[in-house]
């Protein structure tokens, strides 16, 4: 990829995005009516796609341990599958490893001076290596938004490549932080910058969850279409992770409808699509129990519930 490529010429090459059109397209997803078996299937699928997340200054080994237990067994009902992964800060990886290593639940760690990325590249890469050596299966990095907005696209891409190398065998998820890129054109451009150096199965991800705006059906759609165009042009299957702001099962189903109708069946699995979320899991569980029993259970029926009793 050319180093001197400016943002304008990149957008010309990959095509721009019209905001009104995107918003109109995604409004149709929200009108899909998902009932009965389709609903149960969707809820279960969404559960297997959750990266159950805790990213707080007050995280402790104890908190991470209970998160891991929840990820392994979201509810007493064994029909409800485990989540895809837990997502924690690097310092918590080794604590998570004790509980989930050897299970189907992966350990994802944010790294690269998450969430701002405002640290030297050397330190960011060291953080990635440390997380991987502590047992992280997946690394959620942030792109250098400052460099992107300053027009230093080659630098953004080179840094992604450097992180990718530091990941070794670990899967990489590249967080664009869509709210800081602001426009759909920028989101599409940043998606392509990342995808052009990523391996099949690596992810692009909307947001850190640490800014005011996070995953929306709109930015999800822009990124899904970027993934589709990249796949059709190169054959490389990039995965997608919307993160932050998806709190209800109903919203999650709308996101899955977008995947079904944009990328098709091959992306409807946890290797190709994830949800970065915490509160979402209990709403998924709650809806699954409701489908089974016909009634909604009290919030305290579900472990780790943070809603009012």
């Amino acid at each position, binding site marked *: 990829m050319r180093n001197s490529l400016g943002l304008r010429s990149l957008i*010309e090459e990959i*095509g*721009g*995005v*019209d905001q*009104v*059109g*995107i918003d*109109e*397209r995604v409004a149709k997803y929200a*009108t*899909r*009516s*998902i*009932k*009965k*078996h*389709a*609903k149960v*299937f*969707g809820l279960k*699928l969404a559960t297997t796609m959750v990266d159950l997340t805790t990213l707080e200054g007050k995280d402790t080994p104890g908190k991470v341990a209970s998160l891991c237990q929840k990820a392994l067994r979201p509810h007493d009902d064994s029909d409800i599958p485990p989540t895809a992964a837990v997502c924690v800060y690097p310092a918590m990886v080794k604590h998570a490893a004790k509980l989930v290593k050897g299970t189907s639940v*992966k350990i994802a760690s944010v790294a690269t001076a998450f969430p701002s990325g405002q640290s030297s590249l050397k330190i960011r890469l060291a953080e990635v290596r440390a997380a991987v050596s502590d047992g992280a*299966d997946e690394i959620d990095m942030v792109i250098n938004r400052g460099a992107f907005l300053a027009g230093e696209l080659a630098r953004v891409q080179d840094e992604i490549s450097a992180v990718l190398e530091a990941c070794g*065998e*670990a*899967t990489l998820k590249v967080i664009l932080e869509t709210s800081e890129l602001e426009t759909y054109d920028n989101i599409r451009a940043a998606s392509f910058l990342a995808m052009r150096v990523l*391996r*099949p*199965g690596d992810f692009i991800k909307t947001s850190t969850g640490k800014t005011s705006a996070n995953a929306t059906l709109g930015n999800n759609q822009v990124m899904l*279409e970027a993934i*589709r165009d990249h*796949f*059709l042009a190169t*054959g*490389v*299957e990039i995965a997608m992770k919307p993160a932050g702001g998806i709190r209800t099962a109903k919203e999650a189903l709308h996101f*899955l409808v977008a995947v*079904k*109708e944009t*990328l*098709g*069946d*091959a992306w*409807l699995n946890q290797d190709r699509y994830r949800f970065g979320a915490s509160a979402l899991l209990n709403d998924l569980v709650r809806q699954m129990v409701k489908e089974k029993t016909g009634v909604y259970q009290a919030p305290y029926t579900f472990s780790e519930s943070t809603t009012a009793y």
Partner: protein
Amino acid sequence: MHSPKRTARPVARELLFGNLWEYDAAPESSPAFIDASYGLFIGGKWVAPKTRKTFDSISPRNEEKLSEIALAGAADVDAAYQAAAKAFPAWSKLPGSERAKYLFRIARLLQDRAREFAVAETLDGGKPIKESRDFDLPMAAAHFFYHAGWADKLNYVTPGRVLEPLGVVGQVIPWNFPLLMLAWKLAPALATGNTVVIKPAETTSITALKFASILQDAGLPPGVINIVTGAGDTGAAVVNHPLAAKIAFTGSTAVGKSIQRALAGTGKRLTLELGGKAANIVFEDAPIDQAVEGIINGIFFNQGHVCCAGSRLLVQESIANQVLSKLKIRMKSLRTGDPLDKNTDVGAINSRAQLDRIHELVASGVAEGAELYQPVCELPHKGFYFPPTLFSKVSQSHRIARDEIFGPVLSILTFRTPEEAIEKANNTHYGLSAGVWTDKGSLILKMSNELKAGVVWANSYNKFDPSSPFGGYKESGFGREGGKQGLLDYAKLKATF
């Protein structure tokens, strides 16, 4: 974790839109409250037709009978006109603010009963419930609200001049948006102080007849709106009645022309909103995915039963293949079937006659050498259905590029330069609407100056608003509906010095 396929390049580059996660049927279950039979609504009362004849209204969804509709003859139409003429003096002299109250009341009652009317519209006309629910009903109510606002402000339409009502207005409306077209016609007529005889299309009379109950609930004075039902003969009686001060017609160009002939020399005013063969023009710098969405919306909205449907896609040669392949991908996730299912995107064709016409025109496209594409989709066995259809390699002389198909069939043509696009877009008898897709603002302005069409959409399609005048150039008709300009077609303009 690190699977070997990471380094291997997958070969297959097909997206699979299969049934891994199939949506279950999600039929709308609200009742439509359709009566077993309907009379004529004349002078505020239900009356039996003097013809003693009725006809069946069936649902295109499954060909089942919905109701028995009265067939109005010339004597019935005359009774309707007499009732309207009798109601005119009092109605036209009401203060505008009083007429506004009725219009507001009608709008609110329509909103209150929106779901019921949406289901009835879908059962009767075949359009997907999501469209009748999210488009037809809200827009119909919006037209009444908008014109309610004008009723007491007519002196400000043309400041210093006065708008006077015309008298009794005869209106004949089509089957593609039965209730919405009724709203487009009735709202401005009432706001300006006219009284009305209206005839819905024979395949879609039910929501108009249900609407009579809203008029009763709103307490509208008897005779202000009279609803007569029937086919072409009834329509002719409405059009030719001597008491009519004005005829407003929406429908085919052929019928529009015959009405114009019949009215010549009678002194009746006339507005016509007729057919179209709109060009939807996509330039190479357009945002492709959104243009594709706009093309889909432009042609498959309401099964293409839209006079302003973007039925001729003009795409710049440099991106023609890309647009075609993206259109095909997008069409794979369109859901065609039972219109009552909330997930249906393309519903039933309105009637067998219309289905036959679509079949005939599509066959002509194939015979003339255009390339046909239809996604694989399973259509219901009963009822009238046609799959979403694309024709590529279409040239200007093909019938499918010239005739209005009025169905879910898109003809794709290419162009090389803006001048060629303008020439091809304007090379038609029609001139109702057009679409332009480009990232370049100045090109949008240039195109909209050059296109001979009443409505030009830029980077969008099929956008409607009660405040925007809608109507055509050339054989797409004359007169405008909606907006301040639409009021002028229902009034005499008087200047007092």
